[in-house]
């Protein structure tokens, strides 16, 4: 399934999302999973649920679109780690401990987003985990596996960050998205550590089709000038967002 098609479908589904969610609300939204999510969030459970169901979706289909975009990426991450853990003898020791914890989180993110979207949730796509044939040894070569895992996590961080402003009209959803975003960053640093890299991104990684990480000015302040630190150190101190289109261009080969 083509990701662009999925996103197109989401837009079509959006028109009746309010009705669907109203209908599904009692059954889906009060599932224990979402209750837990809400308790972990900063707002009281009923406020979050009301917001997710009525206020938010009623006001804007953008929120459902953002959550389905996130769900699509979480499906991909979860699939990747689930396959790696299920491949006999592939991940052992520290790698197994690490990726079992990460897989637990990605599967929980999938469940959380599916629960929040109810019947509006996109279906799980079919994946090509060789990235269109570029990585045929993903689940037999640990280095190949780590490279892609690191890419997934850093891309996940950039994707949630890029979508955050689009959730400002739905503060409870925004908070939950930020709570996922920071978890992806925890994963990203550990995977980079396993790959022998610094936990943070130093200037722009080679081979990626954007150079945003080279920025030395933030909020209108040139921080090399303001602090005397190198551009490398300044770049490490900030993670840059990517737009949905930029993310889709990167992950597209994973969709069969």
């Amino acid at each position, binding site marked *: 399934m083509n990701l662009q098609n999925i996103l197109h479908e989401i837009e079509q589904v959006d028109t009746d999302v309010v009705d669907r969610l109203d209908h599904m609300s009692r059954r889906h939204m009060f599932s224990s999973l979402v209750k837990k999510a809400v308790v972990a969030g900063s707002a009281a459970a009923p406020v979050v649920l009301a917001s997710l169901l009525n206020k938010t979706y009623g006001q804007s289909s953008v929120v459902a679109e953002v959550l389905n975009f996130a769900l699509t990426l979480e499906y991909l991450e979860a699939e990747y780690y689930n396959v790696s853990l299920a491949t006999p003898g592939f991940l052992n020791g520290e790698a197994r401990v690490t990726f079992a914890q990460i897989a637990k989180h990605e599967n929980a993110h999938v469940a959380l987003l599916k629960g929040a979207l109810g019947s509006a949730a996109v279906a799980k796509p079919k994946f090509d985990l060789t990235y269109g044939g570029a990585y045929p040894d993903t689940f037999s070569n640990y280095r190949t596996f780590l490279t892609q895992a690191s890419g997934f996590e850093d891309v996940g961080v950039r994707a949630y960050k890029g979508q955050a402003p689009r959730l400002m009209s739905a503060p409870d959803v925004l908070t939950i998205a930020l709570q996922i975003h920071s978890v992806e960053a925890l994963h990203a640093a550990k995977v980079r550590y396993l790959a022998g890299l610094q936990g943070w991104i130093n200037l722009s990684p080679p081979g990626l089709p954007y150079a945003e990480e080279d920025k030395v000015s933030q909020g209108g302040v040139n921080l090399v000038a303001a602090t005397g630190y190198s551009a*490398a150190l300044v770049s490490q101190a900030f993670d840059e967002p990517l737009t949905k289109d930029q993310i889709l261009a990167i992950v597209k080969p994973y969709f069969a």
Partner: protein
Amino acid sequence: MEKLPNTTDVSQLLTGKESAALGRRIFLRYIGATAAAGVVLSACQNQIVDPAARGAARAGDVINLGDIGYDDAGVLNYAYALEQLEAAFYVQVMMTPFAGMNGYERQALSEIRDHEIIHRELFKAALGSAAIPGLTPNFSAINFNSRASVLGTARVFESVGVSAYNGAGRLLKSADYLTLAGKIVSVEARHVSIISELLNPMTTSFAGDDIVDPMTALGQARKPSEVLPLVQPFIQEKINGKDQPQ
């Protein structure tokens, strides 16, 4: 890393208040009077305050953040306070490294220090005349000679920082500031991960069940009213701030 600032470079980068703190520390070390610190400090306070520290707060001052979220400046000042605390902590960590700090730890912790200083300077510059004064840390509960104390404290500071940013995102009115906060919080989360790895290697601590809900896989989010009591013990000034009614 291109640049590993030596002590002189660092003190030049600090705000006046930290220069004062560093000066005090060097002074104490020089005269070997650590045991009598309280007495020496009160006796010498006037001499050690750098003229550049004008605008810095003093222990006992009250810093009023008001209803955090009433406007974006309040939220930025809240973040500025937290970044000041983190920066001051790592400056101290690298001034007095714990016994046996290895090369990897030295590089990671000095880079983290630099990130926090850069964050702090960003907020200071962005806030301009609206910025709260420089704060005075109180690290008396931390044993900087102890690896476990330093890394354990670092993990708490970073985790609280992440939860503070996660909780404050909804308070911002400007999309640009929300994005900016997002650029910072994920780096703070990277710090949590690496510090956790140093503290509890080869475990799930990097994204442990204590900081990520094991059922929902959501990271922590705290309101300002939940964060301020956690950091107040490490700041000599009294920080007042309330949650903006939603």
